């Protein structure tokens, strides 16, 4: 164990990059893909996935590998994993309300359920987790508690991202009150507000 710490220190001394996997989790439509695209565009110039107002746009894990970031002199390499939003129900009728045809809506629902199962499987396999919450919504939901409970059970470091602070009814302090055991960083993934604050926290945690 002492040799492992000495080796890590030596690697750090010679500026060797540390690679880690960063998973973006959360309920549906909290802005995970918008954030993943923001991170990927900032550091690689390319997006990760598509965004839509129709729920369950991300229906499979989207990966962007070997994103190199440099924060306050610390260089890191991360594999970014944008997870499908987790939900306890998928109702195809919701997609029909957004104008989709019933058979397309049913296909989307089928893909969404598979995406949720995939996201849940990945709860055990990341090095650091960003749990993205909509700061305009009540954060004390079963989905958020299930995500956090499983990450905590695996001792996976968590940063809670209070997203959508650009909106008037955003209340990020409500998230801090609900989950005082975790670091909460408030951002707007859409507008880029405080995204550097998030990068600093990721660099500290990784």
């Amino acid at each position, binding site marked *: 164990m002492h040799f492992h710490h000495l080796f890590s220190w030596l690697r750090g001394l010679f500026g060797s990059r540390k690679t880690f996997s960063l998973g973006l989790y959360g309920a549906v439509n909290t802005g995970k893909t918008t954030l993943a695209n923001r991170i990927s565009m900032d550091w690689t110039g390319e997006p990760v996935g598509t965004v839509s107002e129709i729920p369950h746009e991300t229906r499979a894990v989207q990966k962007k590998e070997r994103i190199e970031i440099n924060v306050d002199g610390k260089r890191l390499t991360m594999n970014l994993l944008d997870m499908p939003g987790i939900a306890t129900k998928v109702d195809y009728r919701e997609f029909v309300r957004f104008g989709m045809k019933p058979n397309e809506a049913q296909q989307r629902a089928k893909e969404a359920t598979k995406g949720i199962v995939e996201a849940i499987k990945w709860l055990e396999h990341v090095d650091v987790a960003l749990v993205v919450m909509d700061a305009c919504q009540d954060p004390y*939901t079963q989905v958020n*508690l299930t995500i956090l409970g499983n990450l905590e059970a695996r001792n996976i470091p968590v940063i809670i991202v209070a997203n959508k602070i650009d909106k008037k009814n955003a209340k990020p302090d409500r998230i801090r009150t609900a989950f005082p055991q975790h670091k909460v960083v408030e951002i707007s993934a859409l507008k880029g507000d405080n995204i550097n604050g998030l990068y600093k926290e990721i660099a500290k945690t990784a």
Partner: protein
Amino acid sequence: MAVQIEFLSSGTLANKTSAQKIKFILDAVKQEKIVVLEQALTPAEEKELITQTMGTVTKKFPGIEVSSLSGAPASDLRSMLIQLLGGKAGLTVVGPSNLVKQIKRDPGKLRLLTNG
């Protein structure tokens, strides 16, 4: 429309494995019942419940609403034995999403809102 509620005590739950609990919950909610367990689900059980639910989603059964409240630590022998056998003090409410619009939670209470 009459609402059916099935209540499972912590004593009954102590004799069930996690897989049996999840199966019981899903079988009941698919019959349009609301299930109340005198026990909180563990994070692993919550995860498994969602996974199993997703495997059963259809046009007619879009899924569930669920909320689990952790209770106080065990203070009597019976509660301690139940917790030793893997049970977690608290309460869990699960209902079909066609029937249950939302289960709102404050840290210490649950409020169930039905559709219609």
